[in-house]
């Protein structure tokens, strides 16, 4: 398989079967250098399985691909990958700095320059004062911060974070967004596994939505969210009335809000006039994109409907 330059992850039709369970069925995706790529999906969608296959922690049952230009699971490629597992623990009897040292040893990082590098990493993840504390005494949030720090040791070309903020408070989550952006800015590719939609929405350059082991949408946030949608808060509208607005765009009414997709902004006053003409009271008009949450639910439900059919 030939990978075009700049592609950090390039996999096609990646499959994994555990006994009778098909955990991943045909994953195809690409991640480029210098981008934060969000890997989004409901629980059990195959996100963690995909990451483990990319790292060689688990063996694929089908498909092919490259990571950092080398075959999937290649040992040398792992020298330039930083990874935060979803469920993990560090040796509780080690101090935070010793954990960093251990991982620096494992990637063969030269001894000289480790101290300032570790200082910077601990500062970045907010553990500057805790370098000498045994990890066993860390809270879950601190463990996760250290885990992110470990994933950044040696300035890896690819950083894979599996649910990095699951144990963090809102401040911690904001810190992580900053950390991800700084990794991207120095040219690394970041693969962020998450089911937290707002997190992905705020930080990712591109994303893939995966469900039941297949990618059901991939692209920039704009591509995935698709068309713009106008939301009108109304009172006294009946569903047949909503259907009459089809000439303006694609209407959808949830009983309180009326959504019209692909409505040109210039036509908004006409829609309002039409509604008022029908005797409907209009409270609020907001124009914008569909939220990622709405799009996500729509895609996943649509995909499940298709698979069920």
């Amino acid at each position, binding site marked *: 398989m030939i990978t075009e330059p700049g592609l950090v992850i390039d996999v096609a039709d990646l499959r994994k079967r555990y006994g009778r369970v098909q955990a991943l069925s045909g994953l195809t995706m690409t991640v480029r250098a210098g981008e934060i790529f969000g890997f989004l999906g409901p629980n059990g969608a195959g996100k963690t399985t995909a990451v483990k296959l990319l790292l060689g922690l688990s063996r694929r049952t089908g498909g092919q691909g490259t990571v950092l230009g080398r075959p999937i699971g290649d040992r040398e490629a792992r020298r330039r990958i930083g990874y935060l597992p979803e469920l*993990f*623990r560090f040796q509780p009897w080690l101090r935070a700095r010793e954990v960093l040292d251990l*991982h620096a040893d*494992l990637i063969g990082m030269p001894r000289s320059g480790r101290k300032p590098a570790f200082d910077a990493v601990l500062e970045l993840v907010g553990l500057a004062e805790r370098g000498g504390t045994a990890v066993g005494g860390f809270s879950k949030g601190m463990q996760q911060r250290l885990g992110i720090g470990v994933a950044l040791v040696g300035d890896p070309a690819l950083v894979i974070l599996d649910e990095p903020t699951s144990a963090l408070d809102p401040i911690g989550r904001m810190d992580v967004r900053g950390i991800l952006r700084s990794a991207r800015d120095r040219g690394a590719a970041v693969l962020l596994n998450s089911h937290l939609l707002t997190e992905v929405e705020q930080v990712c350059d591109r994303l893939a939505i995966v469900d039941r082991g297949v990618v059901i949408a991939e692209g920039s946030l704009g591509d995935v969210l698709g068309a713009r949608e106008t939301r009108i808060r109304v009172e006294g509208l009946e569903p047949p009335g909503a259907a009459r607005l089809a000439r303006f765009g694609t209407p959808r009414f949830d009983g309180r809000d009326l959504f019209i997709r692909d409505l040109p902004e210039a036509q908004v006053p006409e829609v309002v006039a039409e509604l008022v003409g029908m005797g409907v009271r209009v409270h609020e008009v907001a124009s914008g994109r569909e939220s990622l949450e709405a799009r996500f639910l729509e895609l996943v439900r649509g995909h499940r409907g298709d698979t069920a059919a």
Partner: protein
Amino acid sequence: MITIARLTIGEAARRRILWVLVALAVLAVALTGWGIDRLVSLARTSGTAELTIQLGVSQILIFIAFQFSFVLAMTAAFLGAPAIANDIESGIALALLARPIRRSSYLLGRWLGLAVVLVAYGAGSALLAILVVSRVSGYTPPSIVGPLAYLATEGLVVLSLSLLLSTRLPPIGAGAISVVIYGLSWAAGAIERVGIAITARNPDVNLEIVGQVGRAILPTDGLWRGVIYGLEPGVVVAAAAGNPLAEANPFFATAPPTLGFLVWTGVWMILVMTLAAISLRRREL
């Protein structure tokens, strides 16, 4: 591999359990020394012949070694059994093995680190016991290095077995099975001793095969015979020469383990660790 070995030694040093074991061993040696000192001075005052005293002390020493070889086997099993299983269960292995390290190097690093700890603990405690006994009773076994080496190798055999089981089983299971196999191997050796006694009277019955099979499956019993051989006074070995019943005593050995057996012990450990490496490589994390 060296990184993992160092990590393993550091882990053992920082865990309290090892220091408790060391303290218990020192305490046991101190009590033994005191007991033997009392026994020997009582025997000397009552005019017991020096040779008899020396024989008695050598028997006590062998009995202590027997107890200690069991303690060492248990220690090996409970050091080895959680070594891989715990790392996998807790997620420590995910973070480690995502690094550019071969799973076999990780496994060998674990083995090497635990082996250093085990040999230091086993040989150290045993040497201390021999020196203390020699000091208070005047009995020094004909060989010190031999028994220590056999004892330590016994520990390494059990360690290798428990590490193999640890690649697939939870810590308790791996530890318990290792101890049971160790016990069975000793029992097979004991049955063989009984067999020798029966064969001496009735040459048609041959139970030696039980011991041979036991030693092939787990070489600990054969190594234990080596420990005994090194600890007995030369005069006893000479006196027993040619007496078929002498070999029947489970606390007596007429000869050290053969070279063939020692080679098999080495091959056995390599085989077991190779199996462990294959098992770990195939394991999904």
